[in-house]
């Protein structure tokens, strides 16, 4: 698309969309023209939502989840199991765990995972903040719920070493096993190995 043909304001939005992950120049142009033609206040609503996203949200100073009030609603909720802490990589992981309704404890969001290839080390994550919380809090168990990726595993290995010295703290990780709806025959070796290791008695 020849950029000099389009008004600057249109081209600017196309360029902004194109910077988003997973959006190429064609999708960016399609979204822009959709908004240009969209009925009523749709574009302005989007603009207001984007504005609030940055203006109204902050990180909870306790668990580092995104929130509009600090501390966040989960940290303030007295009905949650306060001796249980689940460590996750991203705020979206909290959303996934909450959706399951299977977990009733507190969270700690690391905001990433250790990655030697990308040069992301422990000090780039909320790990010192986690140590602080554990030393001052009254937690009985920490569940490490990182992604089942190389970076997630690296983060777990690191945390395992760091947290090993804390007395009276039980350290667990999510079981690695077969996914729901998956055939055994298509399951990869590493998942099978871990599923065997984590087998349960019937």
């Amino acid at each position: 698309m020849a950029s000099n043909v389009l008004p600057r304001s249109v081209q600017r939005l196309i360029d902004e969309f194109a910077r988003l992950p997973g959006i190429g120049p064609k999708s960016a142009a399609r979204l822009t023209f959709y908004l240009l033609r969209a009925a009523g206040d749709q574009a302005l609503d989007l603009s207001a939502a984007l504005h609030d996203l940055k203006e109204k949200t902050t990180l909870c100073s306790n668990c580092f989840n995104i929130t509009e009030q600090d501390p966040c609603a989960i940290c303030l909720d007295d009905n949650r199991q306060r001796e249980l802490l689940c460590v996750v990589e991203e705020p979206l992981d909290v959303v996934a765990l909450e959706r399951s309704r299977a977990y009733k404890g507190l969270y700690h969001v690391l905001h990433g995972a250790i990655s030697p290839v990308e040069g992301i080390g422990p000090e780039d994550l909320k790990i010192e903040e986690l140590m602080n919380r554990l030393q001052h809090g009254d937690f009985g168990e920490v569940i490490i719920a990182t992604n089942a990726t190389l970076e997630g595993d690296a983060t777990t290995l690191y945390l395992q070493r760091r947290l090993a010295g804390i007395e009276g703290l039980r350290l667990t990780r999510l079981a690695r096993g077969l996914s729901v709806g998956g055939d055994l025959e298509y399951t990869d070796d590493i998942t099978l190995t871990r599923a065997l290791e984590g087998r349960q008695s019937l």
Partner: protein
Amino acid sequence: MPRERTYRTEAIVLRRSDFGEADRLLTLFSREYGKVRAIAKGARKPQSRKTGHVELFMRTRFLVAEGRNLDIVTQAEMVEGYNRLRDDLVRTTYASYAVELLDRFTADEDRNPQLYDLLSDTLRSLANTDNMLLAARFYELHLLSLLGYRPQLFKCVSCGEGIEEQDQYYSAELGGLLCPNCRQADLKAHEISGAAVKVLRFLQTRQWQAAQNLRLRRELHTELEEVMYYYLTYILERNLKSADFLQRLRREARLFATEVARGPTTAIEDRPQPDSDQEIEYE
């Protein structure tokens, strides 16, 4: 080699990034076609058939369809997962280093089957060896040879005279050893000990099978690591993230497994052996 619309290849996953809703964009080093990029659709979902087969450092058989912009992975079947690389942070870091080095040194679609075999052999040795430092030096030297940067370790790179196995200088700019008489040819050349020259020659001219049992003092390992890093970063004109990461891990040395086996130093080392504890501890 012109590629078919759909092609089959064996490849190692060098890098991957999230793409779209649940896809991953993979950077593969393929035995048949060199470095290629392809989308693995749905590979972030645990229930996808591809997910466990396209993780970092895996050696996998791919079926790839050429797309208009990006190629698409249509099938993926892991051949070798190098599982132990995932169980130890130091091993993970060394594997990251091997992969980063290859990624930096190669351009897209540069076919190099020998380099492919070297990488897969190296990932295997890094997964199994008790001497990661040695495996890394072996890899660097052989990678450089395969890419046309083979360090000259036998003749002076300035005057061409044969080099004795004694203290010398290493010139990154000239790509090898400088004899003491020619030191002026590159004032930035690094000092290198006779023992280090001996080890580099040994590693450069041997297969891993023969080289893997070498045991060296910690200081000699440090010297070798420094001289190789000086040469590699000179060629690449940049630092390597995973090497910097390793340095950061070492600052927390007591937390992590050592990179070298405990045991007496042997073979090539000609100086008296220090007591074995000192030579492998970081501090």
